[in-house]
């Protein structure tokens, strides 16, 4: 479904992605791992066509999106649902209006039906009681979940993209988000989760890519990740070992 072919990208002549090639099928559950500032968010933005690569091709369902106009990109974007790192709720609107945003934009639903739908979506992510709050009144975890609910209202996506959905959350909340992610992908919908928490990645994904120095250094299943010998990955994995040792004690 997504193919990156020798993609390079730089911000202000500083090269962030040096040579990224991979391909992702529909329904795959993928985790992108990598340190801070390695360009994980950048890859998600490239997939959504929010930024354009310096060179290389990005194919979504066989169509090259690198030379599409903003209007043509609309259909491509509809195939995905993205939740940004910060949640990116519109802070001038309350939770209800945030979730209802796309319903109001694209459908002519009567008010009661919108209200019903919003409540239903908020129930899915378990933040129904926050319906009348403003975004700045939400905790980090609630913020993230409302953002997920809002992206669910937008379209019926084929694939979910999550940018660090669990960072900055306590283990219980992080675990809830992981469960939610798995729940949403039940009927064969794939996702890409970007994170630097190996622990959460291992819980949800089947395929792992490790990004380092602008390249994909590892691309494989759980076994490949756990037995990787690359030193940078070893450091990441130490978090996992530590957690497991704790469990064994």
């Amino acid at each position, binding site marked *: 479904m997504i193919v990156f072919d020798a993609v390079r990208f730089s911000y202000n002549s500083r090269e962030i992605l040096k040579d990224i090639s991979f391909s992702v099928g529909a329904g795959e559950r993928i985790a992108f791992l990598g340190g801070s500032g390695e360009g994980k968010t950048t890859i998600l933005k490239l997939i959504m066509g929010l930024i354009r690569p310096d060179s290389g091709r990005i194919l979504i369902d066989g169509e090259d999106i690198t030379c599409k106009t903003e209007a043509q990109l609309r259909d491509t974007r509809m195939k995905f649902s993205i939740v940004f790192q910060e949640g990116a*709720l519109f802070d001038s609107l309350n939770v209800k209006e945030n979730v209802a*945003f796309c319903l109001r934009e694209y459908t002519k639903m009567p008010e009661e039906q919108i209200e019903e739908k919003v409540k239903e979506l908020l129930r899915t992510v378990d933040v129904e009681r926050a319906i009348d709050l403003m975004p700045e009144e939400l905790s980090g975890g609630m913020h993230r979940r409302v953002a997920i609910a809002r992206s669910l209202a937008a379209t019926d996506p084929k694939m979910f993209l999550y940018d660090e959905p669990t960072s900055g959350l306590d283990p219980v909340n992080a675990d809830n988000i992981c469960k939610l992610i798995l729940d949403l992908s039940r009927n064969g919908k794939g996702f890409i989760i970007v994170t630097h928490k190996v622990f959460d990645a291992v819980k949800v994904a089947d395929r792992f890519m490790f990004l380092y120095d602008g390249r994909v250094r590892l691309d494989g299943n759980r076994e490949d990740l756990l037995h990787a010998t690359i030193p940078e990955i070893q450091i990441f994995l130490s978090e996992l070992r530590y957690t497991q040792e704790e469990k064994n004690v």
Partner: protein
Amino acid sequence: MNAKALISDLQDYYLLSIQGILGALQRPFYGKDVIEQMDYAGAGSFFIIVLVSLFVGMALSLQLAAELSVLGLKMYTGKVVGISIIREIGPVAAALVFTGRVGSGMASELGSMVLGHQVDTLRVFGVDPVKKLVTPRMLSAFLMLPALTLIGDAASLLGGYYIAVFVSHQSGYVYWSSVREVLIFENVFSGSVKPFIFGFLISSISCYMGLSTKGGAIGLRSSTTRAVVASIIMIIVADFLLTRILLYVLGFSV
């Protein structure tokens, strides 16, 4: 800043203004956002414009009355105050206040929306950020600044009246009748063309600076500052050019 970056900035600004204007002509329309912006920009600036204009009118009247009474021409106070307020000071003062209050607000709001990925979210949802964010702001400034200028002019003339009658002991009747004398088409026309142009400049510059924000809180600071500074400079320069053009068009000789 090098020349190449400056030219590409100007080009982007130019494109954004065009798209902002076109957004008002094509579907979808965001009427609710326009109303909300008009409320914020217009109704919200009402008191500060009245206050500033009142004091500008009083200061001007005081200064002129003092100067003119030395020459024994006190009865011209209303005329000179009227002309300067209606043609020059009224529109410029209102525009400067509007920049400080509304332009800076636009730049910082849009800037923080960019940094918080809210603008990207709009694009993801298939909503054109220019139509949704820029057009309503440009429309509201374009419509509200002239209205505010009118109100400000009235407040200034009232302030001038107060000084002329109660401080400089002139006849109120003479003041108003000489003000009415200057309310001819040429003066009113020049005074009311300007705020439309200023409103367009302030909103387009502020939106452009806001949307081109990058680099966190520091970036937000500099884009807000740049929005205000660029708007002020453009207001003053445009005011001069407009005065020149209008005098020429309306057939005044200098």
